[in-house]
């Protein structure tokens, strides 16, 4: 048995201290320890972006990140994107209005990538949006509506 360690995280604004194994991946800690299953496991090898979360505001692939490596970090997952009163973030709203969601498996990662992009570039071009989503695969939508939805959030 591996020794467990307590890590301190702020996840979606809440302070948590899960006990994790040294080799535990962040994706599993989020999904299994914290029951935040909105973060998806799809490839486990860093090639699809489905497990993307924001760590201190930067997107990371939680399937490649050890939980102990982000000790002390502030983490945003899809569950924390809506406003505290439960109302939709403009990106979520745009995804709904534009029909950017089909099976929805890529959606959490896409929305978090969009949040990151819009934080750095409030009115990105379509080209910039596509470039930013390069590492996030979607098999259903052909990206078309996802790009439009994110574009519509620009000012």
């Amino acid at each position: 048995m591996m020794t467990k360690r307590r890590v301190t995280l702020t996840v979606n604004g809440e302070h948590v201290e899960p006990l994790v194994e040294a080799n535990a991946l962040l994706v599993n800690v989020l999904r299994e320890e914290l029951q935040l299953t909105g973060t998806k496991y799809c490839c486990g090898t860093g090639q699809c972006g489905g497990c993307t979360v924001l760590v201190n505001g930067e997107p990371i692939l939680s399937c490649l990140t050890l939980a102990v490596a982000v000790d002390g970090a502030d983490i945003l997952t899809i569950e924390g994107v809506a406003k505290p009163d439960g109302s939709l973030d403009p990106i979520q709203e745009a995804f709904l209005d534009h029909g950017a969601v089909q099976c929805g498996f890529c959606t959490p990662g896409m929305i978090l990538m969009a949040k990151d992009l819009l934080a750095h570039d409030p009115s990105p071009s379509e080209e910039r949006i596509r470039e930013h989503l390069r590492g996030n695969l979607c098999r259903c939508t052909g990206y078309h509506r996802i790009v439009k939805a994110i574009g519509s959030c620009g000012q």
Partner: protein
Amino acid sequence: MPENRTRPAYRIIGKAAPRPDAWAKVFGDTAYAHDYTVPGMLCAKVLRSRHPAARVLSIDTGDAEKLPGVDAVLTAKDVPNNETATRFGQTHQVGGFEGLYRVLAEKKIRFKGEAVALVAATSEAVAEEALGLIHVEYEPLEGVFDPVEAKQAGAYQVGEDESNVICSYKVRKGDVEEGFKLADVVVEQTYRVPMVDHAYLEPESGVAWLDQDGVITIRSATQVIEHFRGIADVLGVSHNRVRIIAPMLGGGFGGKEDITVETYLALLVWKTRKPVSLTYTREESIRSHGKRHPYVMRYKTGATKAGKLVALEAELTSDAGGYVYLSPWVLLYSTVGATGPYDIPHVKVDSETVLTNNTFSSANRGFGAPQVCFACESQLDELAKQLGLSPLEIRRKNYLRTGDALATGRVLEHSVETEQTADRALEALGEPSGPSSPTERIGRGIASSMTSYGRMTFLHDTSRALVSIEMDGSVSVRCGLQDVGGGQASSLAQIAAEVLGVPMEDVTVYVGDSALTPLAGTTTATRLLYMSGNATKKAATAVRHSLVKKAADLLDVDPEELAMGDRQIYSAGDPDRAVALERVVKACAADGIPLYDVAQFNAPARELIDFQTGQGQVFPDFTFGTQAMEVSVDIETGAVKVLKIVSCYDVGQAINTLSAEGQLHGGALYGLGYGMMEEVVLDKGNTLTPSFAEYLIPSAVDVPDVKTIMIESGGGVGPFGAKGLGEPSCVPAAAAFANAVSDAIGARVCDLPVTPERILKALGRF
């Protein structure tokens, strides 16, 4: 927005309606198969064969069983009925079409990655460790990995005593020899298309448990909850002792049509009496689950100087891999579709599907259509080139039209708008782009397709739906469908809302539970909207009749005059004469009038076709469409950029324009990936592309926007005249891409994917 014919004014049908299921998805709240836990759940793992062809001499599970935390280790000897067949709840027995496979390997290993043993343990780490403690002694055998080789006499035999050739079909129309004599130009070519993966983002996954009545309940990512029957047969229990629940799927594309984790879970639950979960790794999914069939296709096509097709001869060989699964069905689709959407007087098609020691192939979006579409559409362009016609001209001269017969004798009685889709798609490409460097060449290509929707008519397909109206006027639909993410459940909500005059938010749809929702068949074969849409419409209409009749009494008007809308029933001529729906419902309830209806929709049932000539009806109807592309090719490097994509389909009637266009967007890219980059590369049965680092699918930067054009002929056999789009929308893209590249470089690549290397080779660069 679709082009509208003159048609009845719908309130909800044909509008862009945000889907109810999308809400939970943007919050991350949807509980997919892998997101569900049951207290005390064990974790399962599958031991898979390291050899593609071998004899299993012995399996020793003793050490694994002794490992603390291991609850069960199962091998073939623990499976009551290990040889089984996929049957998909069909109502009609069609012997030769049974997709035989083994649950766990015994005797001969038939592909690398075949399941040999199952483990259930208290954690994933323990289950993983236990796999390493199972000792399997194999005698490696030579195997056969090429389908053409596998069908030769004396080839290595994949199974024990069956032939490698699983089945073959013929289509005979006219006299093909005579036909070629009438031709001024004949082109002949062999085309090869690769094995490809579905690459849904959600891997195969499920959780199962024994409920308090001893029913094995399986909640898994499946396109077919009616596999409960097959699983019960494997266990040797009665069919009503297995229940399957399908949560929302993270994509299916045919890859969750065959059983994935379900039987393994059922066996482990049965043995341990504890809940068990199993999720494949991506590598496991790519290496060992079903794929799209690779084909070798020899085509010969003749046309007159005027460009009229006179004869087509095709020989198709498909690689089924290690087990039969759905190969005979897929091959039949290819055989019927081999002549494309064209009217050809003399036709000869011969097709075979063959066992090899490659990963097995089965259903994949398009089900045998994309392969032959690529070959047929390449031939059309080659003929056009030799005749000095444009690709559009030659197609226009040969498209099948309403009232024409396919080579199988089937007359197309419904709308056929292929020509219009081609005109519009090409037109929408707009002004040609200019090359941006001296080594770039611009090219354009189109491809048309005729793809079936609805299952094969000899299966006598049925679907059921239950529609009920509650005391407050809200509506529930219950239908045993599987929502693969294309808006399947949402489309039923729209249909019920349209018929019953309520807003969509008043409708709740319950789906995907083989014990509680009326059985509705598979979410495959682009049948969902057609079958369950019609069943829902039928049930909702029956409820409507009862309500309208009661309202007519209350309002003292003729029922014929009444309309429904805005949660009211009102006189169409005098809308002030109205009664609230809720009041009518209560009045019906007081009188004991049923407030629900269960309807069954039956597809037209036909007998099996004639296997010597291929004559007969195989499909209920077809969807016609054309995709057009513009590409730029760098002739120094072979690199291709897709500049424009247009997808134009006759959708019959869009139920939800957002969902229908979404299918066209996604379908075009699914097909483009096939044309441009996707390939499961195997070396003697060993997958060399087991992750998304090697198995590449289109990303956001590989593709431009997809321009969609929807024609609404109203001529489909689905509800409100709808046609199916799920599979048809992906079929021509690879062919259109290959044709565009060929136009750009003046040479043809005959194998998919059309990679830079192949382009340079076609250009004679190496």
